[in-house]
Structures are given as C-alpha cells and as structure tokens.
C-alpha cells in the first residue's frame, strides 16, 4: 500500500498513475528462491520525463495567455502553406516553432510573411519532443502573441507519441495522400483533436473520398472535428479560422 495516499496499486491498475515527490509506487519484493534477486514493481510511463516537461511548457504558454497548437502531418501536406495564409483570416497574432531535420526554409518562408518563427533543426530526430519545444521557447517572445503553432517534423508516425506541451493537436491530410492514411496511421489520427483535409481544390483530380475519411475517423476518433480546406478557397479558410478563434484557452 502506498503510505502517501493509501491506495493499493496492483498490476491491474496500470492507468492509475500518480507520484508523490518522485515516489512512483515502487515496491521491493524479495524472491525467496534467489536471495540476490529482487523484483521491483514499477508501473511508470516510459516517456514520463517528456510528459512532465510538456506540462511545464503548457503552464508557460498559459501564464502568457497563449494557446498552442501542434501541427502534424506527413511532409508536403501543407502545414507551412496553411500558416503562411492564416494571418489574413485571423485577428490574433501568432508565432511558429518549426521542426525540420535540416534547413531553416520553413521559418524563412514565415518570417518573409512577417510571422515570428523559430526553426528547430532536429538533425536526424524524426519528431519534436517537449524538451526541444522548451528550448525554442527561449527564442520566442510570447507577450505580443495570442497563439503559438508548433509545426512538427513531417511524419505521420513518430510525432504522435510525444506530447510537446501544446493544447490541441491539429493533423493535416492532403488530398493527394489519399483517404486511406487514416487507417494506415491510426495512432496519429487517434491523437488528433482536429483533422484538416488540405488541398481540397484537388478533389476533382484524385479518388479521395471525404465520406471514407469520415468513416475511418468514426471508428478511431469519433469526437474529432473535421475541416476540408484549400488555401485557395477563402470561405474554407474562414471556417477553419473561426474554429481556432473559438478554441483559444481563455
């Protein structure tokens, strides 16, 4: 039994996670047959340190009245383009933390549009984690902004496992990629708060079924919000900007 809270945690309660000043419900049980071996029940999230750092980032955003969104998708689905075009439709000011393996091209594109952007070059890392975002926050002045977008490394697999300390996950899926990506990359689409189907102006040229995409999301993430947009269609951009406006943290 845990003497701090009195709970009797067992293996069946793996989701019951709490810590009291670094104490993680670790108990030593001697193995009677082998005196020099000890079995230690731990029940500890492997990415616990990242999760603690992520919460720290969220608190930091909150203390500056900034709402943070984590943008995830495969490379080339239009994350940077969406961020380039959004200022036209949003009253709020935003900054962008960019993650890429190499180059600062994405940040340069945004800076050219007058958006404050800081580029993280991950080297070979396929995702951003909470520590990298923390590092980038030292370079972003949060006072003049209302929103901070974290544009994750283009990848539908790895970024899904890391909480970077944002408030909501926005996952993009472009029409040319195909509607089957939802079923193929379930973890990413399960973690999404919003799915944005981009490049909708290409729908007439591809066999992308919005209905099929909806059905797959229904099986994986029924409460997710779905937007279909193209940066060339101002009406669709307004609808998405409206959603952002109504999902700010204050």
């Amino acid at each position: 039994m845990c003497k701090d809270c009195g709970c009797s945690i067992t293996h069946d309660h793996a989701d019951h996670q709490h810590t009291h000043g670094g104490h993680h419900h670790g108990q030593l049980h001697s193995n009677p047959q082998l005196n020099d071996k000890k079995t230690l029940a731990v029940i500890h999230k492997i990415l616990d340190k990242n999760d603690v750092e992520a919460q720290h980032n969220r608190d930091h955003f909150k203390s500056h009245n900034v709402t943070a969104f984590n943008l995830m998708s495969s490379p080339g689905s239009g994350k940077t383009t969406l961020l380039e075009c959004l200022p036209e439709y949003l009253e709020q000011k935003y900054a962008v933390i960019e993650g890429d393996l190499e180059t600062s091209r994405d940040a340069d594109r945004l800076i050219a549009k007058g958006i404050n952007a800081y580029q993280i070059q991950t080297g070979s890392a396929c995702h951003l984690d909470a520590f990298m975002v923390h590092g980038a926050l030292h370079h972003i002045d949060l006072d003049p902004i209302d929103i901070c977008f974290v544009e994750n490394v283009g990848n539908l697999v790895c970024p899904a496992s890391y909480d970077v300390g944002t408030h909501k996950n926005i996952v993009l899926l472009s029409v040319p990629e195909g509607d089957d990506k939802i079923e193929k990359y379930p973890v990413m689409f399960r973690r999404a708060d919003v799915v944005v189907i981009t490049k909708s102006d290409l729908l007439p040229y591809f066999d992308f079924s919005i209905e099929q995409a909806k059905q797959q999301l229904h099986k994986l993430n029924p409460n997710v919000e779905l937007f279909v947009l193209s940066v060339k269609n101002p009406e669709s951009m307004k609808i998405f900007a409206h959603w952002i406006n109504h999902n700010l943290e204050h």
Partner: protein
Amino acid sequence: MHEYSIVMSLMDQCEALALQHNAKGIEQVELKIGILSGVEPALLAQAFDTFKLETVCNDAKLIMNIQPLVLQCRDCEQQTQVNERTIICPACGGNNTLVMDGEDMMLMQLILDT
C-alpha cells in the same frame, strides 16, 4: 524510428531505479506496450539490444507484453478487449467508448540483481 529515443528514456529510468535500490545490474525489464501507443515492438527490441550495452541493462532480458485496447462502452456499459485498432464497441457497435488501456507504453517491472 522514435523507438531509439524511447529506449533512451527507458534506460534513464532503469539507471535511476537501479541506483535507488543499490542494484548491481538489471536482469529483466518488463514493459507493457499498448497496440495504440505508436511503438513498433520489433524495433523497440532492436533498439534495446543496441543501447543496453555498457549500461546497467547490459545483461537484461526484455519482456514486452502487448496490451490490446480495453474499451468501456458508455452506452451498453460492457467492457471489452479489442485487438483491432478501433474504438467501436464490439458488443453494441457504438462508438461512445472510453479507452481504458492500450494507448500507453509503460515500464511495469524490473528484476534487479542486488
């Protein structure tokens, strides 16, 4: 290949726990890997074998228990275990479910050499 960075976090935890309990080494590391945790068990095992050398886990055996989804249906109130990556309740076909397990990766148990 984020399995490598996951293993680095795991090694950090193992080192800290071994130190805390004055262990000479770790004989066995037991994990629970949810089917919707986003981790590929084969890659994780490979990463573990690569990074364990010259750490406290040098001789450790890795046990991975794959955790299916555990769904609690809010409509029909059944709790079910599902091996597919879907949150549809197999009992009533509804999607008003809570995922109770199968989305996390956890360190569950260590056998310490003391």
